[in-house]
């Protein structure tokens, strides 16, 4: 014999269904409004959705690498799983920082992202630089490429 469903139970179920619907609807709306899908793409414009990266985007457009590399080519790992893990991790900190406005100014790359960047320099330029023993993430053993070639990605800086 099925147990009779109490009135309280029923109200709660209906309430839960409603809030779940609201959550789903508002969540999807916010996600769409915030151009959430763009973050899964390789489009550099997605990186300046929140305006913080506007100067970096501007600089990249005027840089030597503009024609050959986008943000993701240098700043995310090149394998599928590592790339989306990196996007998720950085995306979380970026969203948190921008929403709560509690990040360091000026923004600076973190060591493990710097290591990703260094590996990506080598990944494209390995034919020329394979004689150089680089140590991504360990500037004490070997300086990163961008220590000297600062302007290749984001153009001239003062």
């Amino acid at each position, binding site marked *: 014999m099925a147990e009779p469903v109490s009135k309280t139970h029923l109200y709660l179920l209906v309430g*839960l269904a409603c*809030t779940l619907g*609201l*959550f789903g609807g508002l969540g999807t709306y916010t996600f769409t409004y*915030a151009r959430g899908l763009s973050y899964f793409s390789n489009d550099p414009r997605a990186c300046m959705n929140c305006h913080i990266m506007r100067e970096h985007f501007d600089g990249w457009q005027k840089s030597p690498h503009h024609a050959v590399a986008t943000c993701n080519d240098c700043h995310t790992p090149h394998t599928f799983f590592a790339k989306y893990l990196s996007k998720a991790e950085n995306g979380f900190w970026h969203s948190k920082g*921008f*929403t709560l*406005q509690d990040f360091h*100014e000026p923004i600076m790359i973190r060591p493990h992202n710097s290591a990703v960047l260094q590996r990506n320099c080598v990944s494209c330029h390995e034919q020329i630089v394979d004689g150089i023993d680089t140590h991504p993430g360990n500037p004490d053993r070997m300086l990163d490429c961008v220590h000297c070639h600062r302007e290749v990605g984001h153009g001239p800086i*003062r």
Partner: protein
Amino acid sequence: MITRLTERRGVAIWTLVLLLGGTALATFLVLMLYQNIVAREAEATKDVFRVVEVDDRTVDPAVWGKNYPRQYDSYRRTVDTERTNHGGSEAFQHLDKDPVWRRIFAGYGFAVDYREERGHAYMLQDQRETERVTKLKQPGACLHCHASVMPAYIDLGLKAGVPAGKENWEAQIQKGFEEVCKMPYSDATKLVEHPVSCIDCHDAENMNLRVNRPAFLTGIRALADSDYATPHLPSIERWRRDGRQGQYEPNIHATRQEMRSMVCAQCHVEYYFKGEGKLVTYPWSKGLKVEQMEAYYDEVGYKDWTHKESGASALKAQHPEFEMWSQGIHARSGVACADCHMPYVREGAIKVSNHHVRSPLLNVAQACQSCHRIPEKEITARALLVQDRNAALLRRSEKAVVDLIDAIVSAQKSGASDVQLKAPRDLQRKAQWRLDFVSAENSMGFHAPQEAARILAEAIDYARQGEIAVARDAK
């Protein structure tokens, strides 16, 4: 059996309640996030609020502040008082901190009162209250840089017969400037009511940077007319290359980046009051280096005062920040005053330049780190190293100059003649001018470390040469 059923139902109900509450909270947070995104988007599209009309006669910064609340908020912070290792914005008495300066300035107003300058907000009040103004007689010329004085200049210019109209704007300012300079300070100061304000750097119509201080315009044109190399001010070099047509017009020829230094150079410079008219004049026609300005003063036969102890014709260096910066690596690399003293700050989704003008040492992250990507502590340590070395050399130079004063005084007591003391007094003028140049400049050598050291080395050399001259000529 019945109890177990009730218990299970109880658990089920509480689970449902928790789920419902959790989902409601999540929904609430999603809405807050949405609201936050909308707000950031709005910030990025609107950063100016035209709620009142401002024009070239609107001196009161509070009125501009209604249109530009972000800039105004930081501008008002120049009231803050903070001490740095070698300066800052606290009005401590230099004469008590370093009593040798009472002797170096003997017979001059600065031996009476030499307080460290406070922030921009206090420039007019501090000038009205300094004992150099209350105990000694000063001209209206001082207002050129201590007040938002342009409307007063224009009014007096019009009154003196310069035709009205925007096309005669510079002529009106120039004429009014000449009138105010020769007035007694006590009368002239009644014409003004605000310290430096928005119109001193900005064009009210379009917010472009603009220079209008007449002494600066005359000075920078004299500099452009000379052959002094200005790699840090490329528009001057371009104007010269293009055949020096007409006169150099900073408001037309200079780039925005140059203007971000020139608006400051309207006042943060070496100057003197020329002739009976007490016209504020920047001695730049031979160049911006310490010996070139000295050559200018020597040529026109200028002295600020006669040293009370030694009788030397002494010069007072003012606050030659622009000239010193011009000799340094930052200027050479295209870094403007505003890059370090008014760095960009982010407010939500937009960036505004920080109008709280102050020492970069109080704001290293924003002032230095956008170019120097090393830890703040390391940047501060490097800057302090430069300043501490400069301070050590400065103390040594003070000692050398005071020793020379002592030598001259003692020779005078033993009856040396003016002819015998001419060379030592001239050398005192040279040494003291260099010492004061680095001491009065507000960066403790940082704006151009090597240049500051070179100048102090010359100061010590001239002072000791002076002592040798006393020993040789005034036996």
